[in-house]
């Protein structure tokens, strides 16, 4: 990841560790909120179906996967790193859990106590998140491989394990209980969305209410100074990649549960790039990151996706227009940021 020249100008960012969630609002939040409201208004007026319960529910089922994965990307970026292997981790977790349910344990044993085995399978996914996180942490923190290279290598390595074990085939035939998370709602709120909100809140707490988060942000700002201030940079990096791995694993569970399958290439490179795009939209830079902006950025991407899908219904290749508009939006936000920063610098 490139160092962002703009990071020094975000003067007001120092504020938010002092006060609670309210202080999470910064200039980028207002910008994103504006974009979000404008988009919702635009699609709401042009399509009656957009602001219906059905469409909102369907968005709430779709966005958590990429949302949680983006948080897995955000935390390493805060330290000046990046984790290109997030999607590979989530697929590896899903594949191993899938194989456990379908191949490793005899079917009659699973069907005797399906809930237990599904829980076990989900725990396997989380364990994979931790193990893969440790591998990334070792490479980046202890061996000193630049994060972009280390995680590029492990991305191939993790996908390689999935490919080898499945022969490239998608794993299916899960017990119904696997689908509970991905398809059910609690008090009309889809469970994946609840999980996304919980992980977002958890990220906020980790980053702003624990000493781990404090050290992570300080290290991102100036690793030499953090070392001289008694921060053990290596352990911080290790923990950062473990947390990233766990979040990626949670995504694996969400995907597995919604699609009732585990595929080695699910999401592929596109998902990885999308998570970075979200982080860039939310203005995540080494040392500074706003969880609320992450949440907004995810919502914006989903609104664009669903909105244009409705507007362009019946048009050939309509589902691809969203990619185009994501790119355009990102460029626009860069330019707006540039002028906002320029003003600030002149003051």
């Amino acid at each position, binding site marked *: 990841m490139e160092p962002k020249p703009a990071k*020094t100008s975000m003067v007001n960012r120092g*504020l938010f560790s*002092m006060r609670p969630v309210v202080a999470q609002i910064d200039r980028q939040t207002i910008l994103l909120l504006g974009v979000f409201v404008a988009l919702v208004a635009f699609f709401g007026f042009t399509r009656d179906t957009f602001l219906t319960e059905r469409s909102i529910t369907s968005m709430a089922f779709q966005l958590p996967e990429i949302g949680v994965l983006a948080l897995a990307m955000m935390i390493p970026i805060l330290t000046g790193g990046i984790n290109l292997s997030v999607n590979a981790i989530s697929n590896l977790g899903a594949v191993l859990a899938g194989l456990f349910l379908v191949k490793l344990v005899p079917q009659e044993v699973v069907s005797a106590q399906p809930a237990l085995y599904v829980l076990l399978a989900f725990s396997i996914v989380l364990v994979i998140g931790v193990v893969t996180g440790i591998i990334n942490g070792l490479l980046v923190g202890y061996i000193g491989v630049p994060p972009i290279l280390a995680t590029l290598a492990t991305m191939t390595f993790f996908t390689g394990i999935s490919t080898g074990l499945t022969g490239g085939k998608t794993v299916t035939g899960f017990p119904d209980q696997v689908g509970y998370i991905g398809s059910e709602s609690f008090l009309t709120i889809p469970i994946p969305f609840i999980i996304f909100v919980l992980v977002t809140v958890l990220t906020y*707490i980790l980053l702003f209410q624990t000493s781990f988060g404090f050290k992570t942000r300080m290290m991102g700002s100036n690793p030499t100074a*953090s070392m001289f201030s008694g921060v053990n940079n290596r352990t911080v990096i290790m923990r950062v990649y473990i947390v990233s791995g766990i979040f990626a694993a949670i995504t694996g569970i969400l995907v597995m549960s919604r699609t009732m399958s585990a595929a080695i290439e699910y999401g592929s490179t596109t998902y990885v790039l999308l998570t970075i795009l979200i982080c860039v939209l939310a203005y995540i830079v080494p040392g500074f990151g706003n969880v609320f902006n992450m949440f907004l950025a995810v919502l914006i991407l989903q609104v664009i996706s669903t909105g244009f899908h409705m507007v362009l219904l019946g048009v050939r290749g309509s589902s691809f227009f969203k990619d185009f508009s994501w790119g355009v939006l990102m460029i626009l936000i860069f330019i707006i940021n540039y002028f906002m920063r320029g003003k600030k610098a002149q003051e």
Partner: protein
Amino acid sequence: MTEEILRVENISKRFGGVVALNNVSMSVAKGETCCLVGENGSGKSTMIKIISGVYTPDEGDIFIGGNHYKKLTPIESIREGIQVIYQDFSLFPNLTVAENISINQQLASGKQFIKWKDINRIAEEGLARINISVPLDVTVETLSTADRQLIAIVKAVLADARILIMDEPTTALTQKEIASLFKIIDDLKSRGISTLFVSHKLNEVTEIADRTVIFRNGVKAMDQDAKGLDVKTMEFYMTGRKIETESISFGKVDITSEPLLQVENLNLKHGYFDINLELKPGEILGITGLLGSGRTELALSLFGVMPADSGKISVQGKEVKIRSTEDAIGEGIAYVPEDRIREGLFLDQSINDNIVVGIIDRMVSRFGFLKNTQKRIEGENWIKRLELKTPTGALPAKSLSGGNQQRVVLAKWLAENPKILILNGPTVGVDVGSKADIHELIRSLAREGLGILLISDDIPELMQTCHRILLMRGGRIAEEFKREEITENQLNTELIGASAVNG
């Protein structure tokens, strides 16, 4: 003397309401080494920027070699033969020596294609002009700081410099390297190239200057021939007050007390060998030696940055393992790095966060959450205690002035409440006035019972603070002196003498 090359007359420069230079005149003669001395904020860097065309003066005239300028652009300044060697040397680390030297000619010629033969020829000529030899085909990143500086000087000379402006050129050099730099300056002088030497290391100024100009608060406080000018006089003109060196009070060290820090047979490959030392409460122990003598490695090992390979470290009689800075701070050891802003400060983060970063683990509740209120109160307390000029501790550290930033770093390690303090070059780059203040602070901390390891090659500094001084040579402790038993001159001879051994 001979003809004047540069003369500025009645220069004034204001930034907003602040007067940086007020009606200052000075001149540099051909082949003269003129030292420009002054504390931070005295206006000397503003003057350099006016001479090099970066700033336009509000009033006054500039004469270079007979040409009169009301304002000067950087390009005119270069064309008139004024070359500034900045502290970063303006080199490309990844390019070879030859290319770095000849890149300006290449660009100035406007040629779109490179003839490597020409590049090497220009570089060889340049090196020959100041009579030094550096391999042409190695990249600059592999060179020592002193060699990089030489390359920068060669570049300037090749650009037909008539005046070489050097901004604090000796900061990162060893004694030996400083000596050879001075020889080069003398050599340039014999060819009629003048040097404007900006420094606040006064003993160097006495050594090199033909003439010394001192600025204080934007006005010229003194301008006279350097002969017979001593350090005391210069200090007086710089600060406007007499610096009392007689009234130093050293704390008493109780020889019978249990040592705070005990190091036995400590070794680090490529660093130092077989180190034994003891530090008592209230004692200030100086460690000196040339660059490469192992002094910095030893300090970094004691602070866990470069853990030792073997040997024993005990704090208050208890053996401890120090494998990381976290361990060291846990044992009550604090370290103040030499480059306090770059290695000590988080410029973008809030002042409060900067202050508490070393003690953050002490601000965690039973459930593992940060006590954010306590954090804020701690920060605000230090802001009050050290009289930091800021409306709130929530502002980023970079909103502070340089002096206030130094205080934030100070607050950070004082907040750690250490038993043992390791200081690496505590007054490098600090002006005379603040230097005395820092020395008094160090002594007062020792009087309160802290043990202090002071790493420095500033001999007056060692003599004014330390109880004992260890001299390191080639990774070993070569000698130990008690302050009362040695003079500055003897210590200086011992330190320079070490260079013969180090090579």
